[in-house]
């Protein structure tokens, strides 16, 4: 067996994402020597796929997919493992004019049934004509697709029997859809963010030329899943548009062996890598427990990006302390803000300056929506909190802060974050109602986030929608509530409210549920059943607060109010004026 060697960039003139389409970008990257390397959690190089081989194989597969009856514009669902087959299927779809939709992988013990029905709903939502799967998930994939009348369901081998007839591939233009992104929307009602070639290239260009100022010698390392926007766009599509080499390790491998992340950065000279706060946390905690990798050199890591959830200053500080002996510089931290609806990125903090925070009076912020700066550590001072500065909106894009009635707000006034520009999605695929809720007629996206501006730089303070962001994942409270209602005995529809508590240290998930029992052991059984259900169905740890029947707050129209449930929880949790009908148990 020949020893695999990591792919390196060599030769050619560097082009910073100045292409009209993704296929044009790969055509160019294929002229050089760079490519993608896939590592195991133990650091063995498992596969390497140079861009020139990727292009050749993807074009052949594209022709065979067309021979198999898949036509331009049709969708292809691809279960997105971190391997060469996913990348090949994704780029074959680009060349064939098909629209790929990356599907998540199973994560929890015993989560099989829920996973299969989740995949099935996404296949239906995208109206996919085919679903492709890694070999290990073939049976589950076929079960998810059964009865849907797809043209194909299986591994890439299903196209082996079709001939590569050498026929010309369709012309791909900037207005064609490039892919659907399914990280938004609940598992019950999935929403596919539809991104055109033009929007994708616009965002790649802005990231490359302005946000990260990518140069020819950059190299990136990623354990982020391809079914999330940061993994797919940030660490597969941006590298292809910049001819950059990438080192990958699968997300599940990183979760088990977090030290593989700094190890790969050190070994191959990585300069760019991103993670939600929790990835830095996993590494810092592993290092604190005595697991060290020897001879790490993190001095070339120039962009240690953070995005995907609320940025935790303390976590980053712990990471920097743990790894500064290995050459890590805290100035390398780059805060960012973005979402799949804007392809990926909306703003980046300035490079090489580290995390900059704004410390404000929390009472003023909550009561008057004014971000009044206060001094830190004033023990006798007002309640206060730090928020991270995420920098200015990318060039070519506009960002505004508005109040609930849509009025433009000024400096340090907190409100809804609205974005407009060429990187925005075309729609939520096939869903006009949800699209018009998010995108206005004149092209403004309501991000669902709350924040304020300081000198044009964005500071995110929270969310106006109920979405829970945890460990870089978007979790819809409806999914958690529904799982409990379906699976826990004695819990009926409308008996549960799920929400998160955002604290400086972390985001916690709370399930508040009606309880008709008075016996303490029965109450404890209910609490445990809810915790277990959320762990199995969502892979999350939660805490449970039991309340008296009919006490969950409702809106005037009789719908569950998660915002009020959260306030109710907080008023009980700090011991000040806990409502008498809340039997709160820690």
């Amino acid at each position, binding site marked *: 067996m020949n020893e695999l060697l990591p792919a390196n960039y060599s030769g050619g003139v560097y082009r910073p994402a100045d292409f009209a389409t993704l296929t044009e970008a790969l055509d160019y990257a294929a002229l050089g020597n760079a490519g993608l390397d896939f590592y*195991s959690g133990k650091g063995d190089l498992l596969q390497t796929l140079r861009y020139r081989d990727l292009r050749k194989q993807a074009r052949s597969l594209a022709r065979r997919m067309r021979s198999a009856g898949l036509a331009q514009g049709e969708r292809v669902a691809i279960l997105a*493992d971190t391997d060469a087959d996913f990348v090949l299927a994704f780029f074959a779809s680009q060349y064939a004019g098909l629209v790929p939709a990356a599907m998540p*992988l*199973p*994560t*929890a*013990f*015993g*989560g*099989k049934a829920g*996973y299969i029905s989740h995949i099935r709903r996404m296949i239906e939502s995208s109206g996919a004509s085919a679903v492709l799967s*890694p070999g*290990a*998930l073939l*049976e*589950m994939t076929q079960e998810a697709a059964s009865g849907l009348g797809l043209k194909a369901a299986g591994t890439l081998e299903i196209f082996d029997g079709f001939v590569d007839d050498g026929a010309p591939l369709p012309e791909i233009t900037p207005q064609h859809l490039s892919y659907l992104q399914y990280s938004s929307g609940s598992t019950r009602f999935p929403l596919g963010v539809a991104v055109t070639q033009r929007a994708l290239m616009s965002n790649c260009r802005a990231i490359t030329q302005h946000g990260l100022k990518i140069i020819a010698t950059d190299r990136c390392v990623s354990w982020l899943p391809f079914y999330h926007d940061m993994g797919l766009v940030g660490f597969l599509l941006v590298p292809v548009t910049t001819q950059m080499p990438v080192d990958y390790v699968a997300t*599940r491998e990183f*979760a*088990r*062996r977090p030290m593989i992340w700094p190890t790969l950065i050190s070994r191959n000279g990585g300069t760019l890598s991103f993670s939600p706060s929790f990835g830095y946390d*996993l590494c810092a905690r592993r290092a604190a427990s005595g697991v060290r990798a020897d001879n790490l050199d993190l001095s070339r890591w120039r962009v240690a990006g953070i995005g995907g959830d609320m940025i935790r200053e303390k976590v980053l500080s712990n990471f920097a302390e743990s790894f500064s002996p290995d050459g890590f510089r805290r100035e390398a931290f780059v805060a960012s803000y973005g979402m799949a609806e804007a392809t990926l990125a909306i703003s980046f903090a300035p490079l090489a300056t580290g995390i900059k925070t704004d410390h404000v009076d929390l009472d003023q912020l909550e009561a008057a929506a004014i971000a009044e700066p206060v001094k830190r550590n004033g023990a006798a001072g007002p309640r206060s909190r730090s928020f991270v500065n995420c920098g200015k909106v990318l060039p070519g894009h506009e960002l505004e802060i508005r109040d609930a009635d849509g009025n433009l707000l000024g400096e340090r006034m907190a409100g809804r974050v609205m974005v407009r520009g060429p990187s925005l999605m075309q729609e939520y695929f096939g869903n006009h109602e949800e699209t018009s809720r998010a995108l206005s007629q004149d092209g403004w996206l309501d991000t669902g986030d709350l924040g304020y501006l300081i000198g044009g730089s964005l500071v995110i303070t929270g969310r106006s929608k109920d979405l829970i962001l945890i460990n870089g994942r978007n979790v819809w409270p409806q999914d958690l509530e529904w799982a409990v209602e379906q699976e826990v005995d004695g819990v009926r529809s409308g008996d549960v409210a799920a929400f998160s508590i955002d604290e400086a240290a972390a985001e916690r998930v709370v399930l508040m549920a009606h309880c008709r029992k008075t016996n303490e052991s029965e109450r404890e059984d209910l609490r445990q059943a809810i915790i*277990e259900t959320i*762990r*199995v169905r969502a*892979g*999350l*740890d939660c805490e449970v607060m039991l309340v008296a029947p009919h006490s969950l707050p409702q809106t005037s129209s009789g719908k569950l109010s998660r915002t009020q449930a959260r306030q109710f929880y907080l008023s009980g949790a700090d011991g000040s004026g806990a409502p008498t009908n809340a039997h709160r148990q820690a």
Partner: protein
Amino acid sequence: METVGSQIIEVLSSMISSGVPVSDGTRIARDLGLDSVAIMDFVMELEERFDILIPLDQIADVETIHDLTKAIEAIMKDAA
């Protein structure tokens, strides 16, 4: 020679509080009181001990200690 089942229980016993009973029918995600990070650590321990990789599909398919024992035995047999 230790059986796969007894080694699984040995790994678990170092991770869970002593009062928690563990048997073949114990459901891993539900009955052990482990959070999701601890479950990841548990999987890693088993992979190290048996020198195997537990593939994706099996994670979703495994619910009890019994299921896990069978899965690991099958992986080891395939590798042999």
